[in-house]
């Protein structure tokens, strides 16, 4: 293959630099290391004797002490379904106003410890994302409000209820205005509870979306006579054209879309067709990085480009339109392609601009996509917020017209662009009640804080799409003195009912009637609560026929943009997202799939613009009034488009989040009443100094070997082996003196389809949660000491200014001829009879020889005690407060918590293998293929990871291994890995 892969810009630049000119970060690192070594070696023989003597003495003292008395305290009444030491799974639903996911909660001895996707939901089919996986840690967030309070003083719920009701009555008596401000509410029962409240106290319910789609709702109002968001099916689309819609990362329902998208692009199981994805964007997003063809487009030119596409499509269909917009050759070709895929294409735009959405609607209408890839009779309900209603509310607050404000689970003082205006208006509100889930900037400005339960402590339900109902049930009693917000609303309205009964009653009255196959409601309820999912198949009333007039008006208004300034995109990344879960150490340490940076946000800037402005990595700049922010040079950014992630710069969220990065929400501009996430003409000012950014990227470079193999669909169809030809050659050279090791029974293996992996990082968080992987903090990541057992390597190929992106998840390869095993002086790492590369922590003495000898660099060393496992308190290093007694509750009791000084690495989730083997043994049957699922494979929304028994020729993983696309990482070293990769296939042919 001729393509040159590079992992970062340094790698290219290194060629031209002097040999001794090591990149600054590394040099500094080396110096620090030398300093550490120097300090260590100054110890004299006498010191050694002292330490040695002390150790012997303390060991003698410790051994003469008696063993501690350990208690075993049984239940008073053991709950029927619960056996100590055995996990239970409860179906529930995760929705925090941004992400929606039906889940199963793994509860071990009364503690929720892991989130998994619910396979019974036909919407997400068991998929999850990083934030859903991480949400369990939010339950154990010590910063959450622990009890109701009034002006900072804790009060009892009775007292809070009494005072709030008194004040509400007063407001009602004088006819004042009462407003409930919440995120989008998708729960039918919650809506019913809120309307009960509003019956008792007439007022208004305003929904506020941080990632707003209000322009799309308005556009649909104009085209279809109803403000709604349709449901999309990326699985049915053979041609996907996206204008800056990050549908695999943050746009509308990314978990669902990733599932659909990846299923339609798999070439396993004999499928010979895959969708084609063309992506226009200025910022380099996760979705863009997965596209078959990514076209750089300045945000300000997007509207004109969409207009030209519409014009071209219309002219192809014999309808002409007079417009001044030029149609480029690329767009002509694209229109042709779309026209050939009528009814099986999908055009989406991420912009929150009404005209843009109107034109996109017209394009989809022209292509006949409504009814096939877009359904208007099934609505996606995840974004119901209206930016205009929010702006109106703030105006009213400023005019003193709002007498009571209930802010439930919203944080406008942090994430509303005009937070100051909200704050000014808030001062004029009489009764101010905040009902936050997590600690935030807004609640502290409210008089009453009536904390809501975490979702794992609550009853709830949800209707994410029309007829797609899910239930949520508590997996633990509320840890703090919190109360479900719905219960609070009902209580204040004079209904003394708990929310569980309310949900149940609501289902009996309104949802049970849609089902036919159950004798009575109890049976129905028990069944649905068990499954967590009820899909009634209902649909909405038909919307009115498509009215093209508004779209044509929008098209007429489009002018070519002549802007030449620097443009800004603010975006939600896959980890921290909108910042709601910013106080989650797992998410803070999650490397961005593109830049591989964590623990900060930064300004992504194209190499060309950086050269022009004289900026280098880690220089500090100010964007508009926001800053200082470090610069990261990001190949793939459009020449004059810069990007900053949202969700950072929290000031009152808790220890891991506070002061990390800068808040980019104030950069968002309003246009025609809608929030704009792209801003034209921003100023970029260079400040003095540099700021270190922690990246997990440059320290495991694989030095230009054949590690990612890719091909195009056309070549693949011709020759399935294309891109992987080198394999045959390598195989010929693999010779050994030793007999091949045979495994009887089981030989575990993993196959990863590089075509499917989108880089969403759900696996990384799932692995951390399952395997007690520590969080080390920014400073340690800078020293290349991050502990993730699975990482997703990202490489650029081709042109530096417009590269393509390929990525590869790498974990321990469980080599059958493992280089690490030979060098361990104490046999702490050995091979099991099931092909696992075993790691016995208690035998490890920390020589790190294995680490040095591993060609894949997947072994991690505990430089400190990060989890509080050590008896020596001084070993603890816990910058993210992961070792607090509360956060430690999330630890998986089936996996050893590692102490300082030992190596650790991926174990193929051996605890899950052992668990399932035991289940099969007790049921007197053979293990079934697909029964053992490691945490990464379970979490993957794209089903990119397949695990199973290589000894079974019919197992899925054996079939993947037998595929012509399969190859192993650095297989020329004859390490015989148990992890296989399938070549990446891009659909770049038409």
């Amino acid at each position, binding site marked *: 293959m001729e393509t040159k892969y590079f992992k970062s810009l340094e790698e290219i630049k290194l060629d031209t630099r002097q040999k001794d000119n090591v990149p600054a970060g590394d040099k500094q690192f080396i110096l620090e290391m030398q300093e550490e070594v120097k300090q260590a070696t100054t110890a004299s023989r006498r010191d050694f004797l002292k330490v040695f003597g002390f150790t012997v003495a303390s060991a003698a003292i410790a*051994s003469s002490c008696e*063993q501690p*008395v*350990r*208690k*075993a*305290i*049984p*239940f*008073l*009444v*053991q709950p*029927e379904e619960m*056996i*100590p*030491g*055995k996990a239970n799974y409860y179906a529930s639903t995760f929705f925090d106003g941004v992400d929606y996911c039906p889940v199963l909660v793994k509860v071990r001895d009364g503690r929720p410890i892991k989130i998994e996707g619910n396979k019974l939901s036909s919407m997400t089919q068991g998929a999850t994302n990083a934030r859903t996986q991480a949400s369990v840690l939010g339950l154990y967030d010590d910063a959450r409000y622990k009890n109701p309070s009034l002006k900072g003083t804790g009060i009892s719920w009775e007292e809070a209820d009494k005072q709030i009701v008194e004040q509400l009555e007063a407001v009602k008596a004088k006819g004042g205005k009462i407003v409930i401000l919440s995120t989008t509410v998708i729960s039918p029962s919650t809506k019913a509870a809120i309307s009960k409240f509003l019956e008792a106290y007439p007022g208004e319910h305003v929904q506020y979306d941080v990632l707003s789609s209000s322009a799309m709702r308005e556009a649909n109002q104009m085209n279809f006579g109803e403000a709604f968001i349709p449901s999309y099916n990326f699985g049915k689309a053979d041609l996907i054209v996206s204008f800056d819609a990050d549908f695999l990362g943050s746009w509308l329902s990314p978990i669902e879309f990733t599932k659909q998208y990846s299923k339609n692009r798999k070439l396993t199981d004999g499928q010979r067709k895959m969708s084609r994805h063309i992506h226009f964007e200025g910022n380099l997003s996760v979705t863009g990085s997965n596209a078959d063809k990514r076209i750089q487009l300045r945000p300000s030119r997007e509207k004109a480009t969409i207009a030209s596409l519409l014009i071209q499509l219309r002219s192809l269909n014999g309808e002409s339109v007079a417009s001044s917009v030029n149609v480029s050759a690329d767009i002509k070709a694209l229109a042709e392609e779309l026209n050939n895929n009528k009814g099986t294409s999908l055009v989406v735009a991420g912009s929150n601009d009404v005209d843009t959405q109107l034109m996109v609607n017209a394009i989809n209408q022209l292509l006949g996509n409504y009814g096939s890839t877009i359904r208007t009779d099934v609505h996606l309900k995840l974004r119901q917020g209206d930016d205009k209603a929010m702006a109106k509310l703030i105006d009213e607050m400023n005019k003193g017209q709002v007498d009571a404000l209930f802010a439930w689970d919203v944080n406008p003082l942090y994430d509303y662009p005009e937070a100051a205006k909200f704050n000014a208006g808030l001062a004029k509100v009489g009764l101010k009640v905040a009902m936050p889930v997590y600690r935030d900037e807004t609640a502290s400005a409210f008089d009453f804080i009536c904390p809501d339960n975490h979702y794992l402590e609550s009853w709830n339900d949800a209707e994410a799409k029309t007829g797609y109902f899910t239930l949520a049930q508590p997996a633990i009693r509320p840890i703090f003195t919190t109360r479900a917000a719905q219960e609070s609303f009902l209580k204040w309205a004079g209904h003394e009912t708990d929310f569980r009964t309310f949900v149940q009653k609501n289902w009996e009255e309104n949802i049970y009637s849609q089902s036919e196959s159950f*004798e*009575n409601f*109890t*049976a129905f309820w*028990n069944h649905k609560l068990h499954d967590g999912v009820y899909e009634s198949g209902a649909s909405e009333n038909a919307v009115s026929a498509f009215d093209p007039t508004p779209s044509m008006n929008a098209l007429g208004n489009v002018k070519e943009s002549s802007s030449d300034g620097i443009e800004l995109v603010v975006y939600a990344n896959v980890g921290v997202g909108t910042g709601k879960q910013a106080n989650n150490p797992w998410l803070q340490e999650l490397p961005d799939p593109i830049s591989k940076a964590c623990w900060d946000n930064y300004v992504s800037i194209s190499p060309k613009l950086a050269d022009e402005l004289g900026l280098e990595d880690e220089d500090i700049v100010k964007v508009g009034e926001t800053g200082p922010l470090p610069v990261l040079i990001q190949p793939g950014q459009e020449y004059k488009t810069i990007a900053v992630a949202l969700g950072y710069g929290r000031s009152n969220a808790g220890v891991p989040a506070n002061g990390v990065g800068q808040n980019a929400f104030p950069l968002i501009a309003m246009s025609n009443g809608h929030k704009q996430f792209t801003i034209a003409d921003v100023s970029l000012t260079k400040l003095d100094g540099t700021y270190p950014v922690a990246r997990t990227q440059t320290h495991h470079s694989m030095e230009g070997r054949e590690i990612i193999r890719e091909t195009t669909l056309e070549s693949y169809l011709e020759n399935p082996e294309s891109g992987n030809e080198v394999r045959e050659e390598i195989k010929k050279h693999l010779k050994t003196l030793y007999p091949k090791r*045979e495994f*009887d*029974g*089981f030989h575990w293996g993993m196959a990863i389809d590089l075509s499917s992996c989108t880089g969403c990082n759900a696996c990384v968080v799932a692995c951390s949660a399952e395997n007690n992987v520590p969080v080390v903090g920014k400073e340690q990541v800078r020293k290349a000491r991050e502990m993730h057992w699975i990482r997703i390597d990202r490489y650029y190929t081709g042109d530096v200014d417009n590269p393509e992106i390929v990525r590869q998840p790498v974990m321990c390869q469980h080599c059958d001829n493992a280089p690490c095993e030979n060098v361990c002086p104490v046999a702490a790492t*050995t091979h*099991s*009879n*099931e092909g*696992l590369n*075993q*790691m*016995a*922590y*208690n*035998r490890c003495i920390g020589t790190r020889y294995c680490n040095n000898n591993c060609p894949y660099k997947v072994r991690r060393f505990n430089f400190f005690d990060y989890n509080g496992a050590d008896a020596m308190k001084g070993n603890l290093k816990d910058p993210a407060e992961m070792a607090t007694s509360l956060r430690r509750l999330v630890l998986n009791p*089936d*996996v*050893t*918590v590692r102490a300082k000084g030992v190596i650790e690495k991926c*174990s193929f989730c*051996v*605890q899950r293998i*052992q668990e399932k*083997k*035991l289940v*099969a*043994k*007790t049921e*007197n*049957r*053979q*293990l079934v293929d697909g029964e053992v699922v490691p945490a990464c494979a379970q979490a993957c929304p794209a089903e990119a990871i397949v695990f199973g*028994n290589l*000894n*079974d020729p019919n197992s899925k993983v054996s079939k993947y291994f037998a595929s012509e696309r399969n190859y192993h990482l650095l297989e020329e070293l004859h390490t015989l890995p148990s992890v296989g990769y399938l070549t990446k296939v891009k659909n770049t042919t038409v």
Partner: protein
Amino acid sequence: MTITPFTSRGSIRNSMVLGLLMLLFLQAFDLKAQTPEAEKNFAQCRACHNIDGPKLIGPNLKGLTQRHDTAWLLRFIRNSQEVIQSGDPVAVKLFEENNKIPMPPHPDLTDEQIIDIIAYIENGGKVAPEYAAAAPTAEEQSAQDEMLNQMYLQQAERQQQLENLQGDANRNFGTTFYVTIIILLITLFDLFVTKLIKATFVHKVVILISLAIVGEVTYKEAAALGRQQYYQPDQPIWFSHKVHAGQNRIDCLYCHSGAEHSKNATIPSTNVCLNCHNVVRQGKITGTTEIAKIHEAWNSGKPVEWVKIHNLPDHVFFSHAQHVNAGKLDCAECHGPVEDMDVVMQVNDLSMGWCLDCHRKTEVQFAQNDFYKSYEKLHEQLKNGAINKVTADMIGATDCMKCHY
């Protein structure tokens, strides 16, 4: 699980006769109503139900078939919670009338067995007349005597084992150690100073032997560091396994029910104690004082804090279900003759060497359990006679990551 010992001659004889009769009849007849097997099965029910008399935890069973039809009874006895959750009004009412204490499911009972039990209840808790004891023939009598003799021998052996254990537990190397040191010192003193014994080879031999003894003792003590063999702490309640598991022959799994399903064997929750001690309020040895502590815990809502005896380090994963359920091991293999102990003692040192020893010796349920069909090569070797049995280590039971992960 445990083969229970018999303590008095009379009870042994009675049980033996009954057992032998059961054996004979079971061979002679098919399952019939009101068989002794029903009586045996009913022992489980008896913990909560009386047929007649004072109401226990569950309702009295007299007139059972008049109240419910057989099909319903079959469903309810097999899994009562399932019936209740299906919304069956009779079952829900019954559940609520009885303080919502669930009746444990009995998935292992066949329809015939349940019908058998019902007939037994209808008969007022007596086996059918045809099962009444017939006089044993001379042959049977001698067989019985033979078996009895064997049981005596076993019993004596067990008693000896327990005594040995106590002896081991009380053995103290301290005296040996210090005496040896003194001898060593005296020898050295004599060798260099007093020189009473002229032949120095005597000194040398004594010194070598002393050093060997000191070394041996030091090694043994050092190896035992952090281990708790012979640990026998006092418990908050003077609970005797000898009375419960020994004399009353309660199955280990009745109380330690987790052992079959979970990594933990589980200590029974207070309500399990009350299944019997709701009625039994006075013990043979301790009178009412100890049993009153259970009631106190129940009334105060504070569970009993038992002292954990068998402790494994955190980096060891041990599953009871693996050993008891899949491996079909007897509890006593690791825990020793618990049914003979008034106060439980940790019999084995629970060291890794001890674990591995067993993993190397223990034969796997290779032919009996379908799970092992995956091991094709071993099956082949068994077939062609290359090996005659499969031990746990042959399927990887000595690998690190079978216990450490």
